[in-house]
């Protein structure tokens, strides 16, 4: 059994062509997922039961089922439903890219909303009381006090979720999308060289993970500059 370097050099550019799709999935789902997560989190902490319970149910279901199942439900399952086929959103659900984005967004939003909630709960109560005593309204306290502090607190866990999202984009290959993993599987099917192809692909993902972690560390340092005693 040999390790064919020339095969890697040949396959790598082809796999990297999928990186555009990988990033599109990552950035689009990441952004939409964050927006949805903020909404769900606000519903969850709202205190009114008809907002809080749906949010909790959503989080429970999306975190309790495998993401692959969620992807299949959206891609294979939704077309079975008439109201989906006849709705104005059908172009989104007919397309594997659209389905992948929808599934990844829904999934990441469930996790991120809990991460954001953890950040909000972690804000020192005394700081909020001081704001209250000074006469700041509830929304003023939330905007100027809670949000900046909670963001900093939530960042490490949020960073981990971004990396999870990157890894989840590989699952889009199961619904015909030719991002990096999709291309790799095609090449392996042709060349019968799983080691060379998959290992080099794994290294690509690891490098991407490393870069994302470095970026996040930068952001963490910036947001946390008021926590360092020495000026």
């Amino acid at each position: 059994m040999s390790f064919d370097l020339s095969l890697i050099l040949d396959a790598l550019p082809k796999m990297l062509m999928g990186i555009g799709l990988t990033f599109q999935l990552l950035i689009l789902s990441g952004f939409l997922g964050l927006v949805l997560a903020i909404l769900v989190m606000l519903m969850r902490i709202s205190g009114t039961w008809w907002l809080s319970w749906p949010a909790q149910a959503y989080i429970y279901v999306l975190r309790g089922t495998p993401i692959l199942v969620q992807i299949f439900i959206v891609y294979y399952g939704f077309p079975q439903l008439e109201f989906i086929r006849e709705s104005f959103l059908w172009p989104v659900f007919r397309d594997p890219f659209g389905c992948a984005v929808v599934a990844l967004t829904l999934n990441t939003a469930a996790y991120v909303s809990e991460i954001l909630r953890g950040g909000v709960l972690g804000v020192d109560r005394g700081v909020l009381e001081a704001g209250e005593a000074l006469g700041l309204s509830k929304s003023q306290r939330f905007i100027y006090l809670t949000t900046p502090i909670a963001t900093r607190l939530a960042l490490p866990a949020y960073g981990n979720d971004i990396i999870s999202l990157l890894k989840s984009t590989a699952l889009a290959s199961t619904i015909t999308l030719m991002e990096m993993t999709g291309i790799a599987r095609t090449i392996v099917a042709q060349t019968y060289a799983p080691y060379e192809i998959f290992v080099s692909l794994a290294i690509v993902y690891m490098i991407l993970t490393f870069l994302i972690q470095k970026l996040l560390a930068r952001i963490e340092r910036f947001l946390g500059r008021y926590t360092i005693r020495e000026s």
Partner: protein
Amino acid sequence: MTNAQPLIQMKSVGKHFGNFQALKDINLSVSKGERIVVCGPSGSGKSTMIRCINRLERHDEGQIFIGEIELTDDLKDLNAVRREVGMVFQSFNLFPHMTIVKNLMLAQRLVRKTSKQEAHEVAMHYLERVKIPEQANKYPIQLSGGQQQRVAIARALCMKPEVMLFDEPTSALDPEMIHEVLDVMVDLAKDGMTMICVTHEMGFARSVADRVIFMDGGEILEQAPPEEFFGNPQRARTKLFLSQILQH
């Protein structure tokens, strides 16, 4: 110093936390310019009482009046009341993510709707008043405890309140920093600020207070001007407390 309407009035105020009665039948009247010191053992309800005044805690029985406004559940503009009542906390509670001067400006801009320029001037004025103008652009974590507490006092003063509440302002400070905070408070008293101060610092009480109040078990047991309070305490529990606290 008699003003027709007392600034703060508490009538038969009561408060429970679950089964525990934190305040029982509290009756208190504070006029403009008065300096009140509240003392008593831990758990006596001192903090709870002053936190009811700016409604950080909600009282269950009785009535509380700030000027003519009664504190109730459907009080439309609670924040208007809170503007006039400044509070200084035991653990300072500065906004950690803002510089000192921004700490002082935030409430001015959001609550009193002051312009950025004027808020900055007011902030610097009070920072000088508490003698640390050079710290303006630092973050709270870079200041010592005593400095942070002085900033907290300045922050409350920037709102130009009618009355200042102090909840054990020096209890979380290292001993050598206590006097720098007390000096500021004495200064404030000399300028005629109405103050209610929960503290163990009896020296401060003696020199500054118009009235000293002793609380235990959620009730006000005794109140008197300092000479009477320290010289001739009436109740047995007051005597016991004073003997314990004045030992050193």
